[in-house]
């Protein structure tokens, strides 16, 4: 099964800093990756996605980098704001599947004003 943990890794940053959240995935057949943001008591919210034929994709204040060689995904958040405080999950999906998402262990981002 996928990795789980009662104690989430935590990244603490100051408001205005750039944040980098990392994720390692295990299935080399995965070809679609998504980052989700989950605030306390709420459902995961889509942030950005990337297909395996790309190694970088940019959104508004966010950039996702994909390194298929080492099966690593990262989410960069520019000028982090207190409202960015949440748990961030990466998720992977294989093209042949019915889009079942496999989530990685979340990272808690804490932004101090």
């Amino acid at each position, binding site marked *: *099964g*996928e*990795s*789980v*943990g*009662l*104690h*989430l890794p935590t990244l603490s940053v100051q408001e205005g800093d750039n944040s980098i959240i990392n994720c390692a995935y295990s299935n080399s057949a995965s*070809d*679609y990756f*998504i980052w*989700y943001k989950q605030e306390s*008591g*709420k*459902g*995961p*919210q*889509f942030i950005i*996605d990337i*297909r395996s034929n790309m190694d970088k994709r940019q959104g508004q204040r966010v950039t996702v980098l994909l390194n298929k060689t080492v099966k690593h995904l990262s989410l960069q958040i520019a000028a982090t704001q207190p409202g960015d405080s949440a748990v961030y*999950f990466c998720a992977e*999906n294989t*093209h042949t*599947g*019915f*889009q*079942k*998402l*496999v*989530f*990685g*262990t*979340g990272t808690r981002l804490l932004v101090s004003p």
Partner: protein
Amino acid sequence: AAGVIQSPRHLIKEKRETATLKCYPIPRHDTVYWYQQGPGQDPQFLISFYEKMQSDKGSIPDRFSAQQFSDYHSELNMSSLELGDSALYFCASSLRPGEGHEQYFGPGTRLTVT
């Protein structure tokens, strides 16, 4: 914009009781997914439906069953509840299965089994 609706938002049951969770997808979405999230854990895929047929199955216990109805809403039925079933249950919907069709998550149902 309309979002995924889940009901109830909170549910308290005793061991060995049954529970039914409901999910109403975004209009025009024909694919529904169920996920279970334990405290401090990542969401785990349970089951999905496309056009009212089961399309994929994950780590769903035999005590659980689910279906998708003609109006595309879905229900997750849970029987012989155990303390370990206490979790957040999320439903997500998408336009149809396949790469690039973003899954939109509902607010979740928090199930507490005592």
